[in-house]
């Protein structure tokens, strides 16, 4: 999947009217590793403005699902994006917040360098232009992280790094925002704040959110829809329904909870 140039002014900072009509469709998506099915027959609709949480045990294919959506790996079935006028642009803007444990914490790289490496044509080793700095500040302001712009990435706390990465994923404002276990290593109050921010942003900018997480209790409050994945979609629906499903309760040992 070819993404547009990074400096494309994809409805920059301006919230389009909330349509609820543009949508990402996965139909019959399947992936095999060495002949073994990791993902089978996944049908999924992601509506704009809606937060869809994907839950499942380790190795259930959650990250593989994310990779299919990002167009990173070959898969069976189809992934389509429809915009509000039901045209089918080949290149939705996808914002991606990676697992933060995957981040190299030693590099002498500032938050601004991270934006420059993603957005600028001038190599970051020759410094960052004022225009790119302004663009980075705009992105960081969306997540209240503008004060971190000159900090070294390695010195940020887990919560700070997540806000920076979210700000980067929102530059340019995406059609779909994908977060893969964004909260591993972040404490409880940090999680609450992050999800609140995410809810506010998705209403403001009307993008679809796909969130992979283990954090059931918090997700139950913030997700619009929940999908329980175990190589295929076992059940999906409103969080309250999905969390009542016996298969989910067993997988996550929810017996003691009401």
């Amino acid at each position, binding site marked *: 999947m070819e993404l547009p140039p990074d400096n494309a002014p994809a409805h920059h900072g301006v919230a389009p009217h909330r349509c609820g009509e543009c949508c990402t469709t996965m139909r019959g998506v399947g992936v095999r590793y060495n002949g073994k099915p990791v993902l089978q027959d996944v049908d999924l609709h992601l509506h704009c403005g809606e937060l869809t949480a994907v839950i499942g045990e380790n190795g259930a294919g959650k990250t593989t699902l994310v990779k299919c959506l990002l167009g990173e790996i070959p898969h069976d079935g189809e992934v389509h994006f429809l915009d509000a006028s039901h045209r089918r642009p080949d290149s939705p803007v996808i914002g*991606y917040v990676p697992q933060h444990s995957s981040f*190299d914490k030693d590099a*002498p*790289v*500032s938050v601004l360098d991270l934006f*420059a*490496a993603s957005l600028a044509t001038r*190599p*970051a080793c020759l410094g960052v232009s004022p225009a790119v700095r302004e663009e980075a500040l705009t992105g960081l302001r969306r997540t209240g992280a503008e004060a971190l712009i000159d900090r070294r990435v390695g010195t940020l706390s887990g919560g700070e790094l997540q806000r920076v*990465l979210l700000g980067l994923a929102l530059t340019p404002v995406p059609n779909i925002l994908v977060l893969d276990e964004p909260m591993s290593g972040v404490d409880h109050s940090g999680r609450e704040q992050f999800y609140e921010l995410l809810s506010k942003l998705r209403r403001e900018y009307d993008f679809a959110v796909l969130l992979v997480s283990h954090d059931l209790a918090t997700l139950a409050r913030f997700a619009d829809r929940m999908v329980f994945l175990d190589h295929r979609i076992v059940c999906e629906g409103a969080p309250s329904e999905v969390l009542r499903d016996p298969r989910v309760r067993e997988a996550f040992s929810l017996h003691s909870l009401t």
Partner: protein
Amino acid sequence: MTAPLSFWHDAVSALPFEWAGYEFMRMALLAVLFVSPLLGALGTVVVANRMAFFSEAIGHAAFTGIALGVILGLSNPLWSMIGFALVLTFAISWMRRRGGLSSDTAIGLVMAFTVSLGIVILSRGGDFASYTNFLIGDMLSVSPADIAWLAVLAVAVAAMFFFFFNRLLLSILSPALARSRAKHAGAAELAFACLLAVVVTCALPWIGILVINALLILPAAAARNLARNTAEFFGWAIAIALVAGLIGLVVSFYASTATGATIVLAAMGIYLVTMLRRTFSTG
């Protein structure tokens, strides 16, 4: 090439130092002014991308490159060295991509094989001693043609940094994030590794197989102790490499020591100073 070169000789001869009176020193100085910043700049990516073992292996593979040159009857083994270093770069990158072996195991295997193969071929007939100058290098053998070739490499490295640096950096920080923004680094990484192999191989005859990797790693490692962002990292690495190169060249002239190793000691000294500074500044 001759006009700027004679201007260079005139200008440096005018300096009030004893060493500036020797033509071989003026040529060596010119080579240091090219090689040090090149290695310093490449070193930033080598250190950030944890490629130190790869560049070490490329340096050691020169044994086999020289041996191939001898077998092929080449008058200048540089071409067979470069050719072999590139073959090796592709082989290692293929092994890495194919998976199965961890990167350092793959490189370790390849290095053991190429070093042994090169030594076996070169030592046939008991003639290995005539190749030992590659081990410690000879900075005073730089020719005008070498300088021209270095200038070409400098342009290639500058172009590579200009077009590929950002995607390399993003991919080093988070490969998944880089891929999601269509900043695919596969081609950039291979281009970087190839250029690194060529520069290391070209600098080998002057710096020496045993110490070249230190010259790649030390300036960047020292710069890492000082830098708060990428531009500072890059700038410090180049500046430290240059200063170490100049100190090493001049000291080696007066102390009659091998230039490459002397430069490395100077770089090591600078590294220790930066380490102390970092230790005390962070408490």
